[in-house]
């Protein structure tokens, strides 16, 4: 892995793409969006009964909002969106394994539900 093989054009392209798309202004916009989403999550939790939100709707809404935050931090703050796709594949594979662990644990203890 450490051996050298000359220039990688994709590297230069990635660096250029990152420079073109990300900067302090974008990071602050994302920060504001992340805060607004977290505020919405808190509101949904606090006003669940007042609004009469069913449990299933609340679960999927909160999971969706959480996923948006997850993608924003991984994609832009961690630069996965601009980086080598191999890194995304490693991360996604690990995430899928983690979900598989949860499903196996849940299925392995059916009697206690």
């Amino acid at each position, binding site marked *: 892995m450490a051996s050298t093989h000359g220039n990688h054009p994709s590297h230069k392209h990635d660096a250029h793409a990152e420079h073109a798309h990300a900067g302090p202004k974008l990071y602050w916009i994302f920060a504001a969006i992340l805060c607004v989403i977290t505020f919405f999550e808190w509101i949904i939790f606090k006003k669940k009964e007042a609004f009469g939100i069913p449990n299933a709707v609340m679960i999927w809404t*909160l999971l969706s909002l959480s996923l948006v935050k997850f993608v924003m*931090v991984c994609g832009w703050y961690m630069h996965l969106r601009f980086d*080598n796709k191999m890194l995304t594949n*490693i991360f996604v594979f690990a995430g899928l394994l983690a979900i598989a662990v949860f499903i196996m*644990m849940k299925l392995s203890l059916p009697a206690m539900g």
Partner: protein
Amino acid sequence: MSDAAHAHHTTTGIENRKFAMWVLIASECFLFGTLIANYLVNKARSISGPTPQEVYKIDVTTLSTFDLLMSSVAMVLALHYCKEKELRKFQFWTFMVVLGGLIFLGFQYHEFSTFVLHDGLGLSTNIFGSSFYLLTGCHGAHVTVGVLWMSSILITSLIKGAEWFNSEIVEVAGLYWHFVDVVWIIIFTVVYLFVYV
């Protein structure tokens, strides 16, 4: 050491330390996936209290979530100014990352001490307490490591000044910090907000 001294290419096209950090993050996904699964499977199986509904203070946890999200912004700004070689701004935002991490740990200390002293929820009180402290304690330990790492980067930059600009090291530390933030995003939702589910 400057960036130029570190510039090299690899067979993967990814800098070695960065690749290693992503492999570490992948293994950490597995670790936290297991701990979260353990918590979700066991949280409602306690034969005695206190229960999650009785002890969680969502308002305080929401504030600590805001804090960690803002520290992630500080981290990405620190990396940006490191690449731009703006020393003072880089040091300021690195300090803000450390401060954000310390505030988060303060929130966690407050939460844990309230649970133990006020609510009577210890590590071995019931299976909810065990799985909760294992998960959030492990996350807190990761935040502590991140704070120490960022502090060492800040101190090194303060000592060496403008001679020290190593964006590869800052980027790898940043990846770790953002991952800790991402894990908390999941914990905040599935552990705290799903308390009545």
